[in-house]
């Protein structure tokens, strides 16, 4: 639809007519110093903490340090044109960002402004970035699953709707890959995804966007970007921006998934701002409240009960719970999970997925260390079928780990030990999965059942994945109703079990892998 020129001027004329010119009262201060993105403003005696301040030239800053005679302001955006003596105005608004459905499919910066070149965002709803997390009474315990689509995770370290599960590992171990696979797997589930990129290369972010578009996952995703070349202030607030956008869906009775990639860089950005604001440095030069920046962010990821949703939507949505699931990512240095920020975030989240370089390099991808990874929600957030079959997998791998040292002497061991080692090797091989290929519940169920029932024991280890791939395509063509039924109900009744067993037996007879 095109507007013709007269229509445009009519719209403007209408706006001018309805413009209610009021006498405006505000507070003003003067710039005393400008250094490295921090501006000291003299005056502004009634500035609020976190308030947006307007600078000449349309720049905005956030008031962070409220001192007796001056205010320490961190600039959001360009500050090169600001000089000593410039006037600064209070806006009376705490920092807010646009939220709503209009953001889905878009790439925005930390202030909610679009950067994908697809035009302005048509949303008149906005929300402050700092909000208080839901109270204890407003919450409901987590019992619905979020299917990540990776066998290693969904079977042994399941994630539920409303849980916070940390993805922690060294650089280049596949942390972002897990996150992207999780987003791709949410297609068609009704879960809206938000990917917050903090301090990353723009080329990496462009790659992620492209991959999501290729797999049709952009329609249900919002991408918030504060790349490495942007100011520390924007890198600091980007996670809160994403969280506000996710809370919009949570408070409406819908489910959302938010990924913070990664919080280590947000902690670095906050450290930079705090040191420039001359706040006293603590351990590893982080300021004293580095725990608080993460805890208040992650506490907002929760599942709220139906009564709370009804209250928040003024009675429009009844009987539905809302949830925001968080997958924060932390990068460790040299595998040191006992450093300051990693231990902080581990104590905040409801479990962690621990990725190891050693496993990654030996070909086990996703490089999940099943022994150290944990999900504190566990079986309550699993579909029945995966819960029943996942237990066997976990046990096999645990026993294998104990005997791992003896794997080299395979021929000199007794029968039962040798069997355990062989089963462990095959299950480990089965847990490997290609990138951008998340699996449905039915596919996963069939794979795990094949492992549990011993169908893999007679195969060579290096043939296990070919077997799995061929089995799954066989099930897709020969037993589509069974697969559809499992995907729909997630049940593992005797009927389904027998159906699966006989189907796999038939497949084994065909010998086509």
């Amino acid at each position, binding site marked *: 639809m095109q507007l013709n020129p007269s229509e445009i001027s009519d719209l403007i004329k209408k706006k001018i007519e309805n413009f209610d010119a009021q006498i405006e009262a505000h507070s003003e201060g003067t710039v005393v110093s400008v250094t490295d993105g921090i501006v000291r403003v003299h005056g502004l005696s009634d500035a609020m903490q976190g308030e947006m301040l307007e600078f000449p030239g349309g720049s905005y800053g956030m008031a962070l340090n409220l001192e*007796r*005679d001056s205010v320490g302001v961190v600039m959001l955006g360009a500050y090169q044109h600001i000089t000593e003596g410039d006037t600064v105005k209070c806006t009376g608004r705490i920092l807010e960002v646009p939220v709503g459905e209009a953001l889905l499919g878009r790439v925005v910066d930390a202030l909610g402004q679009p950067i994908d070149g697809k035009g302005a965002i048509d949303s008149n709803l906005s929300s402050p970035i700092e909000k208080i997390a839901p109270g204890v009474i407003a919450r409901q315990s987590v019992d619905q699953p979020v299917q990540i689509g990776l066998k290693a995770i969904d079977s042994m370290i399941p994630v539920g709707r409303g849980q916070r599960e940390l993805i922690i590992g060294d650089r280049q171990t596949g942390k972002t890959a897990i996150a992207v696979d999780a987003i791709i797997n949410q297609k068609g589930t009704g879960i809206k995804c938000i990917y917050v990129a903090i301090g990353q290369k723009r080329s990496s972010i462009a790659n992620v966007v492209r991959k999501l578009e290729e797999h049709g996952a952009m329609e249900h995703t919002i991408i918030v970007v504060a790349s490495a070349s942007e100011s520390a202030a924007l890198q600091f607030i980007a996670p809160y921006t994403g969280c506000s956008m996710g809370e919009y869906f949570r408070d409406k009775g819908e489910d959302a998934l938010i990924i913070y990639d990664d919080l280590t860089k947000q902690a670095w950005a906050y450290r930079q701002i705090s040191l420039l604001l001359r706040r006293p440095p603590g351990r590893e030069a982080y300021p004293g409240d580095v725990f608080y920046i993460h805890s208040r962010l992650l506490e907002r990821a929760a599942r709220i009960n139906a009564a709370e949703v009804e209250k928040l939507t003024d009675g429009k949505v009844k009987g539905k719970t809302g949830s925001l699931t968080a997958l924060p990512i932390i990068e460790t240095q040299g595998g040191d999970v006992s450093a300051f920020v990693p231990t902080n975030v581990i104590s905040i989240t409801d479990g962690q997925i621990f990725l190891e370089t050693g496993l990654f390099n030996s070909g086990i991808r996703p490089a999940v260390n099943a022994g150290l990874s944990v999900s504190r929600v566990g079986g309550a957030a699993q579909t029945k079928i995966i819960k029943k079959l996942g237990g066997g997998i976990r046990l096999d791998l645990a026993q294998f780990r104990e005997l791992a040292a003896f794997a080299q002497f395979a021929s000199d061991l007794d029968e039962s030990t040798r069997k355990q080692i062989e089963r462990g090797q095959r299950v480990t091989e089965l847990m490997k999965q290609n990138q951008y290929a998340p699996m449905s519940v039915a596919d996963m169920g069939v794979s795990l059942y094949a492992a549990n029932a011993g169908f893999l024991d007679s195969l060579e280890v290096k043939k296990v994945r070919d077997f799995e791939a061929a089995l799954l395509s066989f099930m897709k063509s020969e037993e589509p109703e069974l697969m559809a039924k499992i995907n729909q109900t997630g049940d593992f009744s005797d009927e389904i079990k027998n159906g699966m067993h006989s189907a796999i037996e038939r497949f084994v007879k065909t010998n086509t892998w």
Partner: protein
Amino acid sequence: MTELATLARPYAEAAFKRAKETGSAGKWAEALQFLALTVQDADMAEIVNNPRVSKEKIQQLLLDICRDQVDAEVINLLKLLIQNGKLKLLPKISALYEEYKAQDEGYVNVDLYSAYALTKAEQSKYVAMLEKQLDKKVNATVSVDKSLIGGILAKAGDKVIDGSVSGQLHQLAKRL
């Protein structure tokens, strides 16, 4: 770096309290303003800020200038400032003293900017409006600022009340 205002505040508070005790608030105000202007004068500032010049010399120089103009107690304050090396705070001390005096006597200094020269009647009308708004007696200083195009702009310390045409155009631009 601590603000000058923070450093000057104890001196200003002490001066004001003493002035209230002796009931000579007005005289102190004038004396402080005089001292502030003296110290800011170009030649004087050069001498005062010169680290080579000894404190005794500065004291002698300033006392020679001020002895007849200000009271004994103000001279004591001056000596104290010289001793502590805080002479450059004098303008700030004077400003803060003014604020305390204004707060105590219930009036506020307002800078009124108008695009065109105001008649006496208009001026008193605006002053009355501001007094009602700020709930204090208003001491208005009027000046002309053509860039406002029309209307008036009032500044009282940090607060700015913008009734000018340029301000309204700015609001309209933001809205559009």
